[in-house]
Each structure stands twice: as structure tokens, then as C-alpha cells.
């Protein structure tokens, strides 16, 4: 029996075998109660980063996309950042939303990349390291509070990238210098040029883009281009990162 036949037979047999309706109504847990329980479940995970948050997907596609893409039928978008750090600064100015992982009713499951060096405030007492070579061991508490873009803005070639894997594809998101207006992506499968965008609250700031490539790509050459189409930097994302980029 082929898989098609097996599925057809199964579904018709199950539909035929559907049990009779319950004789008496069953008391149900209220939706409010369920929501409270879900909230309790996601809190510990939310503390680990911004993959999960307290908010839930209320519509798909998202209402405010800045960029949209399609990886062999799997849609994705860049949307304005949503998650703030300890000081109320957005962890990522934009977030990558992949439709497959963000269904209505679920908590958001997004990823992002920040442009700049994260500012970490630390409170504690340094002690001398017992390891050979000495150094310092820091213990105490730290809070994340925005990013320092100074060094990054001084170097138009500097950029940050991240990616997610999706059933045969990789979807990359990149954060680049404000002068980078497009990125050229070259893989063994071909070349495409993707325009960069900014979130509405900072039109002159760092720019962002997302694109997809086949997961098996041995080369993912990223080239940063300014408004005149001149190359300002880039690297092969398929190779391990060296130096700043």
C-alpha cells in the first residue's frame, strides 16, 4: 500500500469510527486559566533571551513587515524589533519572523541581530584568577543596557549576521552600516542583490536585510554595496568568522 493510499484509508476509517458524542457536557477549564498556565510556562524560557516572549502571535503575516521573503514556499519577514533589554532598549532593531515558527496563538519565536557592541553593566568584586596566566575573575550581577555603535559606525565594512535553518534553506539576517544600501549574495546557485531597510523609528541608522540560500551552499559570499553600488566590504558566510567580521 502506498503512503497516499494508506493516508486516504486511514482518514476515512477514522472518520467512520468517530466516537459518539459524550453523553454529558464536561466542565472545561476557562481560557483565562489556560492563558495563566501558559504564561507561567514561558517565563523561564523568556529569561534566556528573546526567542520567546510574553506576547503571542495575533496575526500572520505580521501587520508591519519591513521586508518579505520566500524560501521555497516558507515565508519570512523583517519586522520592527519588539524585545527590550534591561534598560528598555531594543535588543534587535528588527526581528526575523519565519512563518513556520510563528503561528497564531503561539508565543513569538523570532531572531535578531544587534549592530554595535552590547553594553553590559556589571556590579561585583573582581578577584585574581587562580589559573595559570593570572587575570581576573568577575563574579556578581550584570545587566544588558543598549549597544555602543561608535566603533562600528567608524567602519562601514563591519556588520553582524545570524541565520536560522529551515528544512533545506538558511535564512540570514544582517545588520550593516547606514551607508550600505544593498547586499549582493553569491552562492553556487546564483547571485542576487537585496536592498537594505531601516526601522521606521531610525531611518538614518544602521540598516538591515534578510535573504535565503540553500542550506548546502558551500559558498555564501556577501558583498556590502553603498548607494553608488561600490563595494564597502563583505565576506563568505559559509566560512568561520575571522576578526571583526
Amino acid at each position: 500500500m502506498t503512503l497516499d493510499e494508506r493516508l486516504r484509508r486511514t482518514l476515512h476509517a477514522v472518520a467512520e469510527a468517530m466516537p459518539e458524542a459524550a453523553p454529558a457536557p464536561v466542565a472545561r477549564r476557562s481560557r483565562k486559566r489556560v492563558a495563566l498556565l501558559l504564561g507561567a510556562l514561558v517565563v523561564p524560557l523568556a529569561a534566556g533571551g528573546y526567542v520567546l516572549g510574553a506576547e503571542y502571535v495575533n496575526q500572520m503575516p505580521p501587520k508591519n513587515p519591513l521586508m518579505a521573503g520566500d524560501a521555497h514556499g516558507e515565508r519570512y519577514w523583517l519586522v520592527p524589533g519588539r524585545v527590550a533589554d534591561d534598560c528598555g532598549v531594543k535588543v534587535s532593531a528588527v526581528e526575523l519572523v519565519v512563518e513556520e515558527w510563528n503561528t497564531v496563538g503561539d508565543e513569538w519565536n523570532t531572531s535578531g541581530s544587534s549592530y554595535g557592541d552590547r553594553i553590559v553593566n556589571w556590579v561585583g568584586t573582581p578577584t585574581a584568577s587562580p589559573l595559570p596566566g593570572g587575570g581576573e575573575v568577575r563574579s556578581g550581577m550584570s545587566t544588558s543596557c543598549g549597544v555602543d555603535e561608535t566603533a562600528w559606525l567608524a567602519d562601514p565594512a563591519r556588520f553582524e549576521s545570524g541565520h536560522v535553518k529551515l528544512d533545506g534553506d538558511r535564512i540570514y539576517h544582517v545588520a550593516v552600516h547606514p551607508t550600505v544600501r544593498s547586499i549582493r549574495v553569491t552562492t553556487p546557485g546564483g547571485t542576487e542583490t537585496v536592498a537594505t531597510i531601516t526601522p521606521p523609528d531610525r531611518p538614518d541608522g544602521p540598516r538591515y536585510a534578510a535573504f535565503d540560500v540553500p542550506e548546502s551552499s558551500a559558498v555564501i559570499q556577501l558583498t556590502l554595496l553603498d548607494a553608488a553600488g561600490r563595494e564597502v566590504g563583505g565576506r563568505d558566510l559559509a566560512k568561520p568568522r575571522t576578526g571583526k567580521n
Partner: protein
Amino acid sequence: MQRRGVPGRLWGVTDVHTPPRAAPAEDVYRDHRDGLVRLAYLLTGSREQAEDLVQQAFAGAWDRWQAIDQPLPYLKRAIVNLAADAQRRGIRDRLFRQRARVEPVTEVPELDETWAHIKALPPRQRAVVVLHYYDDRPLNEIAELLSRPAATVRSDLRRALERLRKVLK
């Protein structure tokens, strides 16, 4: 605008469009409720929940019945969406949906095993499988019914079949 076909004969010309009148809600309810409950049952795995969803779908359509040209596709779409929402809200499903538990339903072990794995599919993939193999809908119709791109529906089905092929070896 008029289009000319055979010389001297006008065809396809009309200024007034009269949409086909939808069947009365009572008729649709009487003729299709059972089938819709079975569809909802395949999407939820619960008879009680299936009946609730069908009731909700009819209730949602009731006030605007006259504006709905094709009640049956409309109701099916509502049921698929309601089932997906319910499934996503369910804590038990959230925690256990990756695990396929075989329970005797059809009394044919091979079919029960298949059903267990269909139930473990993500809501969207499960909906496409049910609409395609139970409701006998081609993928382009499913795409239309779910208001989703045809490529996405094809991708959902392909992923579902890949997953089922692996576990049903």
C-alpha cells in the same frame, strides 16, 4: 465592456452581476453538519471539540449568511482555522504533540499507527493532509480555501509526507 465572439453575436456581456443565492443556512446545517463534524474530528481528534468547532463556525457565519457566496468552503475554512487555534492553545498538545501515541480507533493496527502520526503533525500540515486525502481537494483548492499561497500549501504537504514516510517505514 463588450467582447465580440461570433460575428454579429455578442457574448459574455453583462452589466448586472447577480451572485448565486446561497442555500439557506438551515439546509446547509442539515445536509452538511455531520460531514463537517467528521472533518473537524480529523483536525482535532476529539468528537466533543469537533462539534463545538462546527457550532462556532455556523454561529460565526449566521449573521452574514446572505453575504457568503459559498457557505461550505467558508465553513470548512473557519473550521480549519478554529481547529488550528484550539490546537495551538492547548497546553497538552503543546507539550506532547511531537509524540505519536497509538490508540485503538479503527481496530486496524496499521491505520491506527498512521492516525497517531497524522495527529502528531503540526496543525497546518495536518490540515493540508486531511483536506487533500479525506476531503479529496486538490492543492490549489486547498490554497484557495486556506487563503494561502499554493507554493506554501505544496511545501506543507511535502513536509508532512516526508515526516510520515520516515516514521511509517
